């Protein structure tokens, strides 16, 4: 059995939004007890990843480190805008989907890790999709 749900999300500049709550809710709605959960975004300048929960400073480090590795340069070949160019690169480097194991109605990473939705190109309206498969 497969259950998918789409979520709209409005993001801020360099925002890291915790979306674990939505994922758990989808798992409950799906009624599936065991299987896998995949969270994916199709927005090319956003990213989804799992990281330590409950420490905003760690998130700040992640944002700053990402900017150090991929600076928003003005001499990218693509001509949209520096933030947009860096956003594409960060998206492909840091991944835009996460899959998690669902065991007995509970995600393995619950309580220890959270899933974050990272926005790389300024405040905008974005979206992501949660799919629960199993029985």
């Amino acid at each position, binding site marked *: 059995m497969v259950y998918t749900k789409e979520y709209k999300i409005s993001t801020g500049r360099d925002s890291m939004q915790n979306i674990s709550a939505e994922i758990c809710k989808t798992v409950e709605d799906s009624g599936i007890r065991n299987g896998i959960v995949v969270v994916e975004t199709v927005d090319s300048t956003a990213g989804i990843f799992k990281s330590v929960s409950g420490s905003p400073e760690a998130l700040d480090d992640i944002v700053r480190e990402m*900017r150090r590795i991929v*600076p*928003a*340069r*003005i*001499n990218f070949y693509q001509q949209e805008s*520096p933030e947009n160019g860096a956003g594409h690169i960060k998206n492909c480097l840091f991944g835009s989907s996460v899959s998690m194991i669902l065991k007995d109605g509970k995600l393995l990473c619950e309580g220890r890790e959270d899933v974050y939705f990272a926005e790389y190109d300024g405040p905008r309206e974005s979206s992501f999709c949660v799919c629960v498969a199993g029985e």
Partner: protein
Amino acid sequence: MAYMEKISLTTKFEGMHDVTKQVQEVVKKSGIQEGICVINCNHTTAGIIITSFWDKRGHVDFQEELDKLIPLRYDYHHNFDTPTDAAGHIKSAICGTGLTLIVHEGRAMLGSSQGVLFCEFDGPRARQFFVKVISD
């Protein structure tokens, strides 16, 4: 005894201009046999360095590596001018804007593959630098 001269040039974007000949000419014109020659430019987004002058593509490597170290990112704190200007300040500070060479037998002592290069870090501009030769 001392002799000074101003040399001006118009640079290209990320240009590396070989100015060794002009420097040697100034030393020759000064007539000083033994002494030191100070090269200095008063810009904050340009640099003067010594490197091999043989292969021009080596100069492109220099500018590209410098670009990796100091990327042309737009969010520098110094955003009064342009990002190229902000990065240019850092590159210029790292490369230095002055050199001192030893003058021996009427010529500035440079290795067989050493050349004095004027590096431009902020777009095509009219630039100038000064060469002063001082006898012992």
